[in-house]
């Protein structure tokens, strides 16, 4: 797939004196899981609301599946599904009626509705409980039902705002598997916001990191991890001492050096390689057994980006 599902250019949203989203420019290809990561108040939900045409951007442009968010909100909402911050279920109604309602909203025929509801609820393990009032259900079950509602009309794109928040690890893993299968089997584009970086790492083909409305980085998780990881290296060996640390710290290609658990931990400046550093260590009499470079997790990469942004401010 090479078509573009979402395109934003300088997308900005102000609420009175607060800038919730600041000059956001993104291009999201169709048929991938796109992770939109950021701390609370970063502007993730506001971005989703703008992309759904629920609130109007203050500046900039955005289109979803070729439709402009300012003028074609109805066309966008017709083609996508959305599981927002809350499951949005009618808790005084039975599970089946919740799906029946949204099946009617998406104009599925009676037969289509029956079949699709059975298919989804069976797959999610809720078929036997379809007649129950949703009110007494656990958060995990409600979230599964909400996911069934989102998928009911087989949308070509879905927006998920923290879909696994508050779920136990088993329920979260089940939802992750369902999403992965959905993209694999039906080519659905998923726009996912999450705090769970391990989840993003497992599920997303591309991630964007946002803080205070500003885009910090965007790309495949491996690439982002690589960028951050390539700045750290650990050297296992013998003979490390304060003098070596001082010489390392005085180099232009090293920002910091420390000894941790008998290993030498080096933070590199820019994209510099380890070869000149290893050469220097050997020339200074160190015995090098192993050099390991670039293994930051997405979480480490995320935290590093957040720290850098904070320092710049």
């Amino acid at each position, binding site marked *: 797939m090479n078509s573009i599902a979402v395109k934003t250019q300088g997308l900005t949203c102000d609420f009175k004196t607060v800038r919730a989203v600041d000059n956001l420019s993104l291009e999201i290809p169709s048929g991938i899981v796109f992770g939109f990561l950021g701390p609370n108040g970063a502007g993730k939900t506001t971005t989703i*609301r703008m992309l759904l045409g*629920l609130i109007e951007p203050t500046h900039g442009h955005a289109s979803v599946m070729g439709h402009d968010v300012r003028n074609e909100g109805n066309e966008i909402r017709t083609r996508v599904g959305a599981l927002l911050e809350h499951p949005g279920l009618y808790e005084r109604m039975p599970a089946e009626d919740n799906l029946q309602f949204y099946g009617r909203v998406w104009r599925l025929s009676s037969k289509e509705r029956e079949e699709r509801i059975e298919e989804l609820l069976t797959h999610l393990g809720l078929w036997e409980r379809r007649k129950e009032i949703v009110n007494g259900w656990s958060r995990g079950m409600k979230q599964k039902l909400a996911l069934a509602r989102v998928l009911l009309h087989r949308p070509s794109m879905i927006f998920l705002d923290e879909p696994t928040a508050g779920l136990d690890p088993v329920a979260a893993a089940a939802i992750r598997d369902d999403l992965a299968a959905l993209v694999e089997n039906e080519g659905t584009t998923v726009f996912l916001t999450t705090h769970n970086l391990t989840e993003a790492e497992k599920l997303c083909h591309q991630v964007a990191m946002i803080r205070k409305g500003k885009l910090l980085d965007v790309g495949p998780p491996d690439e982002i991890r690589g960028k951050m990881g390539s700045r750290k290296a650990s050297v296992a060996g013998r003979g490390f001492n304060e003098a070596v640390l001082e010489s390392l710290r005085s180099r232009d290609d090293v920002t910091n050096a420390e000894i941790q658990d008998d290993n030498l931990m080096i933070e590199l400046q820019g994209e510099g390689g380890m070869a000149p550093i290893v050469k220097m260590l050997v020339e200074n009499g160190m015995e090098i057994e192993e050099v390991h470079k670039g293994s930051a997790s997405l979480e480490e990469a995320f935290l590093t980006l957040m720290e850098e942004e904070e320092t710049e401010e």
Partner: protein
Amino acid sequence: MIADIRTMIWKELKEIYSIVMGTKGAKVGIGITFLIFAVFFPINFGADLGSDNPFIMFFAIWLPLVWVSTIIADSFAGERERKTLETLLASRLSDQAILFGKIGAALLYGWCMMVTLYLTSLLVCNLTNLEEAPIFPSLSFFAGTLIMGLLGSLLASAMGVLFSLRATTVKQAQQSMSLVVMGFYFLPFLGGMLLPESWRKPVFETLKTMDAATIVICVIVFLALVNCVLIAAAIARFKRPRLLDNE
């Protein structure tokens, strides 16, 4: 659009049913109303109830107003409180479909209750006065009563939706609604008292000379106009971003 309004009405009626059946107070209230108006009155007033009694028309407006006002505050404020509004707004339903679906469901509820109560009272009236049966008002009166009931239900629905749209909680919407409903009842009396002395006499003289049919038509036209204004105001107020601001 019609199919979408029907879908909204379907969902709203299910919610109204769950509100009414899930609340002991609502069930008792409806039961007492039916006992008074469909059993006690027909038994006590007998054949008078089957005549063209103007009080019946008054109740045809008043009762739906009371019934609808107990459930309509929930329409938007309830969805907002229970965190279902944003999901509904993120669906493919148009603004008009959501709005008219909510008004339509409340209108149906109020009107069907009123028609059921009226027909039940006529049935009880005939059963308890078999020697005078069949007791039935003139067709024009009967039709007028049904129209009055419809307009009364629409008035409460449109007014309730208008308050519910911007209220943060159901309670807030209910309080605003009660104040206006009370104002609506006292309006004729207050209007009479507030009229300048020089106007009062000619107005009452004109009213005296009008026949019942003309008064009914005037009331119907007045209610229809008020309803149109309220619905137009609700359409103007229904803005997705503003509805989300209150979330």
